[in-house]
């Protein structure tokens, strides 16, 4: 701690910048070009409903469920927040009393989205 206190702000900023740039070098490693196996594996023209196609459907269902849940949940939370902010704007002294029910309602609405997230996790790994 004493060593850090002796360094000036400028040198600390330079060290931080160097560290971030240095660690971001790993983002530019060459990506491996994956071949397109997808179309061959999910081909079920022989009439059977094979595992890869079922997996594709399950994953797409999970993705759609999560997207719908997150968007509708955001709409609900924005309504709660806007009502709370309007209440604070009318009566700034009641901000403390409005804050607790606001946080509670946001958490309860968010819990519905999290139920969908848990189900999406279960599907994603059981596929």
């Amino acid at each position, binding site marked *: 701690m004493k060593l850090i206190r002796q360094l000036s702000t400028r040198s600390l900023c330079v060290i931080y910048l160097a560290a971030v740039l240095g*660690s971001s070098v790993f*983002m530019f490693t060459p990506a491996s070009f994956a071949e397109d196996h997808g179309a061959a594996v999910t081909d079920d023209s022989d009439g059977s409903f094979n595992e890869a196609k079922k997996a594709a459907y399950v994953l797409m269902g999970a993705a759609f469920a999560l997207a719908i849940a997150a968007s509708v949940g955001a709409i609900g939370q924005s309504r709660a927040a806007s009502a709370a902010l309007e209440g604070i704007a009318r009566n700034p002294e009641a901000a403390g009393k409005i804050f607790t029910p606001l946080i*509670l309602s*946001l*958490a309860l609405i968010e819990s519905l989205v*999290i139920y969908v997230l*848990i189900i999406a996790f279960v599907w994603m790994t*059981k596929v």
Partner: protein
Amino acid sequence: MPDHSTWFHFLPFYTSLLESAREKLGLSWYKGEQIEIAHVLGYAFVVLLIIFMAAFALRKYRQSVDEALIPEKKFTLANFFEMFTEMIIGLMEPMMGRTAALYFLPLIGTVGIVILFSNLIGLVPGFAPPTSTWNTTVAMAVVIFFATHIYGVKKHGIAYFKHFLGPVIKWYALPLMLIMLVIEIIGHLARPLSLSVRLMGNMFADHLVVATFAILVPLFLPLPVMLLGVLVCVVQTLVFCLLSIIYISLAIEEGEH
């Protein structure tokens, strides 16, 4: 993703303990994964931490009663526990009245403190939050579930189960009573499920996001997510305690006639 190494991996007996646990318990129902005992050990660690903190903070109460009544000047550990107790009682008093609030304070206070510190310890690097598996959260939710029914029966006797039958309890309202019974049972069973899954989902998702950000740029990128994580920890504790208070007060209310 949940299989990162924690401080518990440095214990000498950890690997053999993990192997024997996996042998006896098999695979987890959740994803067919291997059992991870870092969460349960983290739970034990949190409980030890709370007991030591409480014993250290409350030593002034053992000296004399007059000294114990004087609040401390700075923000010490004893002050923190007193503040927490005040907050829990402030949540309970408008719903239940003073005597019931003091009666249920041990249950709700214990659940609140355990959940708060279990959540917060997940933010310390090297620990896994014990509440991020369904095992620990469902234990607490089932305790609250049984508490509501047992205290309801204790207060009202067997007539407590008339609550399930709805508003009208006459012989000509039999279909209504049956439908209300089904709805009430489903609602009552959904309560511990929602309590446990809400807490588990929040902690698991938060830990997962921090881990994902740490894989991208491990130096300072997870910090804003950890700040959000502190808020989420405290809010989830509050929501769990408030909901359990609401369920208990619904069970013991007597504002019928």
